[in-house]
């Protein structure tokens, strides 16, 4: 299944786009933005926490593995759209200019928990991203990487953001 950020244009009800420096101390800015989008999409607190976590983890992996903890440019887009089935979707796109990443071997694999002796923040982070997001795409580009995350609002999680 291929998702393109352009697909979200037609039915989008919310959009946010910015560029930031990929450093660990910028993660709280990103988190605030994702919280805003999650609230706009009327996700509840549990869903919001999950979505924020997944986006955080991807950003951390780009910072650590892509840019090796050195400053680097990251473009970020978030969009809310409604799919053909009437389900709200949150689309996130990261574009980095780091060396192409080989994501093979990052995940712990399968539905089994990581063996605790093998747990690393990076591997666990990728596992969390996959367990939260409905779509996780990575595209190697000539001058970097593009990452797409899509979260589809769960029917049994409806009820709005708890305040």
């Amino acid at each position, binding site marked *: 299944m291929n998702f393109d950020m352009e697909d979200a244009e037609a039915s989008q009800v919310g959009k946010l786009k910015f560029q930031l420096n990929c450093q660990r101390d910028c993660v709280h800015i990103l988190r605030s933005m994702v919280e805003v989008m999650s609230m706009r999409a009327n996700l509840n607190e549990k869903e919001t926490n999950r979505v924020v976590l997944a986006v955080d983890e991807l950003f951390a992996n780009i910072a650590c593995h892509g840019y090796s903890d050195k400053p680097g440019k990251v473009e970020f887009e978030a969009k809310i759209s409604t799919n053909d089935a009437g389900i709200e979707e949150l689309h996130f796109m990261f574009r980095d200019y780091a060396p192409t990443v080989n994501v093979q071997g990052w995940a712990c694999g399968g539905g089994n928990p990581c063996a605790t002796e093998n747990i690393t*923040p990076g591997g666990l982070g990728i596992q969390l991203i996959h*367990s939260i997001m409905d779509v996780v795409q990575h595209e190697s580009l000539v001058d970097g990487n593009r990452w797409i995350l899509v979260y589809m609002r769960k029917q049994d999680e409806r009820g709005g953001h708890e305040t």
Partner: protein
Amino acid sequence: MKLDINVENKTAGVVSVAVQGDVTLQTSPALRSQLKPLFSQENKQIHVDLSGVGFMDSSGIATLVEGLQWARNTDGRFVLHALQANVLDVFNLAKLDTVFEIVEADA
């Protein structure tokens, strides 16, 4: 972002650690540096109070996994107390909720 960590020796071999703040890639090194000296043969139980933690990412969990490994290697106990719902959810997602010894707030 600030992480407050308070280490208290309860009785011989029993240590209590209270953590307050978000445990993230940014703050988990501070937690790790506080916990690591506790992972010794002298200690038998380490109790970590996470009631003040509202957000934890994979780096935080990986830090706590070191405590789990210490417990397994030394036949000690590494116990997590009073996880907030959002933090417990991360353990569930990572399928580590049954691997750690987790005690609820009012237990």
